[in-house]
């Protein structure tokens, strides 16, 4: 029993021990708080950076297997030393600065992106009682920090003194701020049912504490979870939304002029952001650290890893989408569907609220089923309408191209017939 208790509360026990240690060394409570907070920040950042290393390796291997090849296997057994090789490569590359680039802006941009990516981990609940800081506005904080990285992208694009970097930065920013809208709209149902903006409260509602039903929010709002996940992928500019750093197209976009350690920081920012999106999805929709047998932090890691595997799966499978397709999907499909969902959800969640005296058979499970079904209907309807429209557009374009080709063929044969 004692060992089980220790394993379940391992993080909390370690945290309390460190706190006691520092308090013993320094008598002042304020200074103890500051020092332990600083240590916690360092540990979180180290965790994020180490997981970045493991993630690059896992991504390359998994995407390779999806694409029917092996992936890196030369550096170390099974290619396990690849992240270290990558790190050495990044460190030893020459650190160039373009002439006539704005020194301050050019140099600070990667720092801002890395900082913004790492700050999102501060409000993540890792285990019961283990959270960087229990902000009562944790959800909005994460989104706000995400918009901080948007500014850094503009700084990078402008500071490079390069027209293509600037254009790439503009397009990237258009994508990022466009996909913030469905992300926020689809967070609102979660906040509605949980009754609080704090991530700790949201995770507690999805557990069986205090009589809460213990239903993960993905069963309440499958459509919102899906759109949130897709918006999250678009926010981090990962494939299939990586049109703006596509090496074959716009020459790596806004970070074309960066090399060496600064590029490594951009790279780190992208992966840390993707991992943060996975953690957010796991916390908001999949129930955070709740789970039956394993310790809580293990459950959180399993869920986040599962979400990240989905991200890698999408990267290996789907082709890159075009910029106009991406904007069409966002503004003409996601935003109306999210708004419509929100209106329907407000009504249904209020009608089927548990604790309603008039309808005592309404339990949270019933509420979950009602919200799920009533939001799936407009989503599927919208999908079918959109796909039918797009198919008819595609057919019309194809017919047009076919007539042109037939005319071409006719012209060629007449000219050839005339020549003979």
């Amino acid at each position, binding site marked *: 029993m004692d060992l089980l208790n220790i394993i379940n509360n391992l993080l909390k026990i370690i945290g309390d021990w460190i706190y006691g240690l520092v308090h013993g060394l320094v008598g002042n409570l304020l200074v103890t708080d500051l020092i332990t907070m600083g240590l916690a920040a360092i540990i979180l950042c180290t965790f994020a950076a180490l997981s970045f290393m493991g993630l690059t390796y896992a991504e390359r291997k998994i995407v390779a297997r999806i694409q029917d090849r092996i992936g890196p296997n030369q550096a170390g057994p099974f290619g396990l030393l690849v992240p270290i090789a990558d790190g050495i490569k990044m460190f030893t590359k020459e650190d160039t600065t373009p002439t006539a680039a704005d020194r301050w802006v050019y140099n600070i941009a990667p720092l801002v992106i890395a900082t913004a990516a790492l700050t999102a981990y501060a409000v993540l609940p890792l285990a019961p009682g283990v959270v960087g800081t229990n902000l*009562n*506005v944790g959800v909005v904080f994460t989104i706000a920090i995400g918009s901080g990285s948007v500014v850094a992208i503009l700084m990078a694009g402008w500071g490079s003194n390069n027209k293509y970097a600037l254009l790439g930065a503009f397009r990237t920013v258009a994508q990022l701020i466009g996909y913030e809208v469905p992300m926020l709209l689809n967070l609102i149902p979660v906040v509605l049912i949980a009754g609080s903006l704090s991530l700790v409260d949201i995770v507690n509602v999805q557990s069986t504490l205090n009589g809460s039903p213990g239903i993960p929010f993905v069963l309440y709002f499958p459509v919102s979870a899906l759109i949130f996940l897709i918006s999250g992928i678009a926010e981090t500019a990962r494939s299939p939304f990586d049109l703006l750093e596509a090496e074959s197209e716009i020459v790596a976009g806004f970070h074309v002029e960066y090399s060496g350690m600064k590029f490594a920081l951009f790279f780190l920012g992208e992966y840390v952001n993707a991992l943060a999106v996975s953690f957010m999805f796991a916390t908001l929709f999949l129930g955070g650290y709740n789970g039956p047998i394993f310790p809580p932090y293990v459950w959180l890691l399993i869920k986040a890893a599962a979400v990240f595997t989905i991200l890698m799966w999408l990267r290996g499978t789907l082709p890159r989408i075009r910029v106009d397709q991406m904007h069409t999907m966002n503004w003409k499909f996601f935003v109306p569907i999210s708004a419509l969902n929100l209106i329907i959800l407000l009504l249904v969640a209020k009608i089927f609220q548990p604790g309603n005296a008039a309808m005592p058979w309404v339990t949270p499970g019933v509420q979950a089923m009602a919200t799920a079904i009533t939001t799936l209907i407009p989503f599927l309807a919208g999908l079918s309408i959109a796909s039918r429209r797009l198919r008819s557009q595609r057919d019309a374009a194809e017919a047009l191209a076919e007539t042109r080709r037939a005319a071409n063929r006719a012209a060629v044969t007449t000219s050839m017939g005339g020549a003979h």
Partner: protein
Amino acid sequence: MTITLQTIIFALLSVVVLGSALFVVTTRNLFHAALMLILSFFGVAGLYVLLESGFFAVAQVLVYIGAISILFIFAVMLTRGMVAMPRVNAQAQLAALVSVLLFVVIVVIVNPTALSIKVLPGASERVLGGIPWQFTTVTTITDSYIKQFGASLVDGSAYLLPFLLAAVLLDIALAGAVQVARERRPAEVLAERELMAAEAAEEQQREQALDTAPETVLAADHH
């Protein structure tokens, strides 16, 4: 007055806010001005946190830094002139004087009574400025202020109407901004220029007619 950690943080944040604001209004490079504006907004968000209203700190970052600053940067990029423009206009010194005067006046007024200025020291105890802040016994607040605020926004007898009006305002601003800043297609641009040329020609005709035969033009106007 005791110096706590919050006092030090407040001093640092004030320096950040005011320093970057000064940079914004005195620099020639508009992109740097936009970046310093972002820094100022961050500082103001920090001040909101000191005032124990964390929700508005996050809202400030989300709205001002996440949206308005990006608008500013886009506008700066799209309106880069070919000629380097002078930084200040003709009334800049007067504007600076007015600003400093206003600042002095406000500072004198908001000081609490204990620090107010005696106009005529000695005989009569007239004070200049000074507001009795003794009514402020600062109570502690809990986090329920967000819930109260949200409830007041949908309460018919509270702020529901301004809330809906604000939503309508945002809709109109969105539609208007998109329409005004829209990139005109070449056909549209030519049509606009034709229209402007036609109006200019008509105006010129009217001027000529006024010079030669003013009575007929004014009579025609009255109909």
